């Protein structure tokens, strides 16, 4: 449907730019406009120069990353996660702002480029009218989104938007980061004012040009402007008065918009670009596969801000302070001095302070680890469990774990660590295990079995079971290892172990930052495995699973590896494991970080539990939002202070809320170690048990009864 019949008058249906401006005033506007763009471009240059002061890094598969970024932008899926209203309203702001920006760009394209250079015009007639309507809708969307953001800041008062820091106390100058709060509000108000004055301007123009039917009769194509115009009309505003109002609003709106554009690279508005770039360069496995360090280089890790890669510096700038990592972090939740958000913001501020000027300051000023303002404290770095809850939920793809591990590498190199951790690392150096046990005692747990496990060093096996430290030495978990051996034996699996020659796989050695020892362990284990004949590896330990699966390939160790829970699910489904009875229990399942978040092994354990007949009740924090037991990242080797709640205790209290819970099912030797203690320290010893999935399977296979029967028969 065409609103007008003749093409001649269609040309006149448009908005005359700079209508009523004296020539000199238009010139003034162009000077202001170009200055704003100049400041913007200079700001971009300063930011890019800042990132380029980081270490070089090449991004593989950038095309795929860019495509993922486009999808994330269009769907807003990363922003919707765990906060749907914020995601939806951000979507309104994003598309509202984006369309309005495109609209302005369209006008510029015609007025400043195509029309003067080629005489091409298109911004009139039907196109103009539809354009007006779309811009009005976009403006309404933008305002709704902004008002919600103001509402959630002011009235919802979400704890995750409180910038007060768990790693600082009130006298510290960077304790509450109130400047950030002010910046948030300034940004929101600036955008709201731009949008509102845009509508007012639109209305004032309508009233001003009331006499022109090509404007006034078509005013409902900009419905918001038309409604406001109706109000202005009703309030008795004259055409002349509206003209004056329009001139004032025009400049206010224009200058505010240009000021915002100029300030984008210097304010939180830069996330428009940095968040997109951060998503495009994100790594698919940031916490599962840590960067390999060159051991022959002069230094190791990141102790200065320039030791981070350009990508990490970019990531620091991408943070929108949304607080999802702050909320998800188990260290932060239990009062440890770490918030992933604050870590990122600290490093951002340090980079801004030291890398923005034309020349670099001396190396001392670049120190990223320390106790000063904008420095990360060692205790903050040691609080991390490398559970990747932060990485998982970050809507802009920031990779906190490698940042922390790089800084830990520097701490280890300076020998800045807890004495207990130092002792453990020394044990691993000399004995190959973290518990300080003699190498020869590694297979001692097998002595309780009434069959001999094959020695994979001596004879070929189908399945090589990489047992791991805690599964070999922890007395509680030895029972699980024995149960798993019985299950495999009963199922007729041809399996073997490495006996004394197995060394700790090194997952957590790498995550505490002892990269040299990690590489040694990986190489030594790969050499041992190289001397054995097997088809695939199985392990009950998600940490071992993670590093062999994701990190050993970089050292030449490429294997097919399965976590025990996946193998059990398969054997249950294929009938290889024969159950004598079903479970009547009500259970809940705790996802180990290294199996779940890091390797997406969420379903096999759950399916196994269902096949055993147990009733599975999920905790609120499950699957990708699972709450770390506190043992990851080498924290199992550093005792938690007694005056704080342990992450494992926090988790036990969550589980205890499930009515009639019989069993808290774990699937990792370190989780077992943590939760057996926490069950007692939280007073839940009488209420429910902590059991391994493997133990539930063994219970259904009724080994005890079999053994008793065998004993009777022998007697």
């Amino acid at each position: 449907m065409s609103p007008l019949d003749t093409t001649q008058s269609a040309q006149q249906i448009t908005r005359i730019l700079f209508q009523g401006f004296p020539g000199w005033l238009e010139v003034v506007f162009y000077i202001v406009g170009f200055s704003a763009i100049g400041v913007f471009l200079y700001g971009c240059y300063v930011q890019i120069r800042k990132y380029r002061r980081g270490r070089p890094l090449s991004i593989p598969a950038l095309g795929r990353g860019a495509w993922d970024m486009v999808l994330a932008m269009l769907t807003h899926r990363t922003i919707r996660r765990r906060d749907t209203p914020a995601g939806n309203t951000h979507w309104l702001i994003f598309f509202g702002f984006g369309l309005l920006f495109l609209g302005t760009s369209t006008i510029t394209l015609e007025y400043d480029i195509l029309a003067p250079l080629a005489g091409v015009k298109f911004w009139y007639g039907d196109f103009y009218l539809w354009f007006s309507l779309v811009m009005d809708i976009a403006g309404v969307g933008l305002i709704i989104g902004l008002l919600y953001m103001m509402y959630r800041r002011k009235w919802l008062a979400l704890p995750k938007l409180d910038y007060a820091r768990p790693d600082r106390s009130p006298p510290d100058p960077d304790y509450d980061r109130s400047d950030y709060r002010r910046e948030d509000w300034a940004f929101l108000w600036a955008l709201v004012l731009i949008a509102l004055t845009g509508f007012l301007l639109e209305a004032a123009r309508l009233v001003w040009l009331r006499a022109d039917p090509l404007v006034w009769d078509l005013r409902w194509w900009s419905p918001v402007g038309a409604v406001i115009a109706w109000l202005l009309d009703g309030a008795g505003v004259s055409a002349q008065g509206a003209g004056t109002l329009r001139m004032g609003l025009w400049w206010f709106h224009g200058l505010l918009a240009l000021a915002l554009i100029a300030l984008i690279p210097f304010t939180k508005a830069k996330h428009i670009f940095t968040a997109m770039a951060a998503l495009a360069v994100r790594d698919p496995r940031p916490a599962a596969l840590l960067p390999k360090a060159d051991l022959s280089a002069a230094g190791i890790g990141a102790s200065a801000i320039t030791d981070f890669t350009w990508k990490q510096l970019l990531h620091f700038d991408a943070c929108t302070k949304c607080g999802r990592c702050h909320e998800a972090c188990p260290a932060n939740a239990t009062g440890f001095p770490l918030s992933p958000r604050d870590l990122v913001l600290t490093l951002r501020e340090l980079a801004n302070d030291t890398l923005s000027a034309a020349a670099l300051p001396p190396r001392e000023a670049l120190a990223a680890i320390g106790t000063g303002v904008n420095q990360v404290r060692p205790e903050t770095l040691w609080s991390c469990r490398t559970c990747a809850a932060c990485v998982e939920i970050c809507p802009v793809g920031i990779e906190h774990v490698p940042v922390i591990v790089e800084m830990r590498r520097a701490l280890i190199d300076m020998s800045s660590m807890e004495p207990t951790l130092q002792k453990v690392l020394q044990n691993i150096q000399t004995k190959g295990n973290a518990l300080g046990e003699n190498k020869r005692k590694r297979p001692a747990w097998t002595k309780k079995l009434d069959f001999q496990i094959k020695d994979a060093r001596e004879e070929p096996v189908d399945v090589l079971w990489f047992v791991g430290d805690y599964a070999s030495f922890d007395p509680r978990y030895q029972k699980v290892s024995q149960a798993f051996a019985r299950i495999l034996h009963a199922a007729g699996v041809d399996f073997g172990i490495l006996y004394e020659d197995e060394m700790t796989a090194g997952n957590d050695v790498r995550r505490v930052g002892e990269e040299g020892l990690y590489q040694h362990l990986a190489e030594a284990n790969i050499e041992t495995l190289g001397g054995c004949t097997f088809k695939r590896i199985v392990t009950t330990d998600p940490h071992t699973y993670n590093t062999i699966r994701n990190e050993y390939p970089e050292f030449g160790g490429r294997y097919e590896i399965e976590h025990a829970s996946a193998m059990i699910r398969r054997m249950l489904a294929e009938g290889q494991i024969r159950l004598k009875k079903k479970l009547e229990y009500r259970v809940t399942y705790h996802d180990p970080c290294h199996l779940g978040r890091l390797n997406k092994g969420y379903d096999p354990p759950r399916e196994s539990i269902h096949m055993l007949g147990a009733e599975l009740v999920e905790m609120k924090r499950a699957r990708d939002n699972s709450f770390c037991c506190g043992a990851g990242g080498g924290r199992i080797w550093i005792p938690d202070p007694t005056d704080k709640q342990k992450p494992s205790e926090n988790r036990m209290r969550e589980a205890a809320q499930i009515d009639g819970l019989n069993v808290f099912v774990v699937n990792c030797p370190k989780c077992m170690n943590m939760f057996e203690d926490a069950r007692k320290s939280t007073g839940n010893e009488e209420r429910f048990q902590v059991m391994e999935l493997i133990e539930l399977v063994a219970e259904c296979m009724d080994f005890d009864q079999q053994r008793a029967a065998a004993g009777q028969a022998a007697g």
Partner: protein
Amino acid sequence: MKILVPVKQVAVLDEDFELRDDGLDADPDFIDHESNEWDDYSYETALQIMEAHSGVEVVPMTVGPEEAEESLRRCLAKGGERAVRVWDDALAGAGPATIAKLIAAVARREGADMVFAGTLSADHSFAMTGICVAAELAWPHVAVVTHLEYEPGAAKATVQRELEGGLVEKLTVDCPAVLTIQLGINQPRYASLRGVKQAKEKPVDELTPADLGVSGEDLAASACFRLRRMFKPAKGQAELIEGTAAEQAARLATIIKELKGAA
């Protein structure tokens, strides 16, 4: 200004072990080796002085076979630029006074201004090697040092020793001197494996006793004792005697008779 730090690679026995056929040592199959814990503290003491002052050199040394080089590498991973290892197969089983003679010879050759040794070694626990070094050099010594105040080049050092009951003894000693350092004097740093690997580039001078001008006779003469036998003492068994007083007395009498008979 140079500080010589003699270190030792010590033997760690398995929980279950057997003795060598000659009965003079444990069977090597049941022995692991590691750096002596006390030497971590003496080396840290030297490194801290080196780092706090310019012109101080710290040289770790050991008297031991090729495997013992590992302990020197661990030292060099923490700091220091070169090390000295003295060995000759004839030195196998050498006692502390013999080892001390060689350490003293290295101290002279290096022109060392101080020698910091560990108080004792975890395997043999003689606690006399350091003191014998002082005797060889005719330097004063202080043993079991728990605190040290020393300015490089100063004529005297102030040291503290912890005595029984928490009593602390503070004394000054003329330098050069030999100090044997006790656990806990500091917090020894960690030798990262990367550091150990990089330390492989640092030179270790390999010397024989002959290179140091110590002859076989000198070594033989320095042995101040001879190892006769190593053995696991038979474990005594306690027995709880139960029953009435008469029964207990009867049982006791039997035991006494048995023991008399056995003697």
